[in-house]
């Protein structure tokens, strides 16, 4: 990690940049796979749902069941799309915010804590959308959403939000100090 300097950028640790780039790569691969294997993914999810009718509330009446399956498949697809979008965005957020943190925060422990929270939170949060999609066929839409929410979105999202506001506080203080 480069030491902060007043007028030039600091460079974030290599592991941070690696995680950010891997997040973007995973998003790109996810986007490509969604397009290339759309039929296979839909077929897999549909077969898994048909194998567990009680989880999805399937009643054996074609008209009713098809509507339920369609709704679940829309959510399954939405989860994959949101993973693609968020992993790309959060990869860039990690690069930008960790650069700001290593440039602006002089206190070593605070800098490390904020960079770690930004990186872990930013890279972990989008995985929740992937987990949601993967769990829908087995646990149903609402239960899998609850699992993803409490095991991924809430902890990783909170880490990112807390780190961003702390970083904003550090930048605000530095801005005020440099003005006075």
């Amino acid at each position, binding site marked *: 990690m480069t030491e902060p300097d007043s007028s030039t950028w600091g460079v974030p640790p290599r592991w941070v940049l690696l995680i950010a780039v891997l997040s973007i790569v995973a998003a790109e691969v996810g986007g490509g796979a969604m397009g290339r294997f759309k039929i296979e993914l839909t077929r897999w999810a549909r077969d898994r749902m048909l194998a567990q009718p009680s989880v999805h509330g399937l009643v054996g009446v074609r008209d009713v069941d098809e509507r339920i399956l369609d709704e679940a498949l829309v959510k399954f697809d939405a989860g994959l799309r949101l993973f693609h979008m968020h992993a790309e965005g959060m990869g860039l957020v990690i690069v930008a915010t960790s650069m700001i943190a290593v440039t602006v925060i002089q206190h070593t422990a605070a800098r490390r804590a904020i960079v770690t929270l930004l990186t872990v939170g930013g890279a972990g949060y989008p995985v929740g959308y992937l987990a949601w999609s993967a769990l829908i066929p087995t646990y149903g839409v609402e239960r899998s959403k609850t699992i993803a929410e409490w095991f991924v979105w809430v902890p990783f*999202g909170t880490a990112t939000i807390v780190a961003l506001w702390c970083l904003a506080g550090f*930048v605000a203080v530095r801005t005020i100090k440099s003005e006075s």
Partner: protein
Amino acid sequence: MIRSRPVRRPPLGVVLVALLMLALGETAGAAMSRLKPEIQRYAAARIAANPAAHGFSGSAEYDDEVRDRAIFTAEAGLSFFHLHGEGVGLVLFFASALVAAVVPGRRARGVLYALLTLGGLFPLGYLVYGAAVLELGRDAGVELAEHWILTPLGVSAIAGLAGLALALARRRA
């Protein structure tokens, strides 16, 4: 091994605006997810408090449809704010970093920072969009946000980015 020389950064005020947009965008996303029922209740209450603005007729069926459309539009405003806060925050960060690194001349950099920073406030227009829809009615609220906030701030962002592109082209030539 190739080593680059230190790269100049933009002023902290510009970095702070970019960071605030990212933080607000993230927080709005979390609020949308965790507080959806509360937001919908608040929106319905504000619409009920402004019946004339929403053109309520007294017919329950028609009024319910108008209310649902207004709530949907207000929620869309919050969703756009989340999306644009994240995106425009990053655009402001990377564009201003480029200005600092490659644009010669203090005055030119100052103008570009000002344009980009104003443009960086563009997502706030969607917060106004959501609130104005509830207070003034759907069409009047959207018109107000688009005309007075989104358009000027969007033009500022475009002008800043065009200026940066011009500076990069002149530097190459």
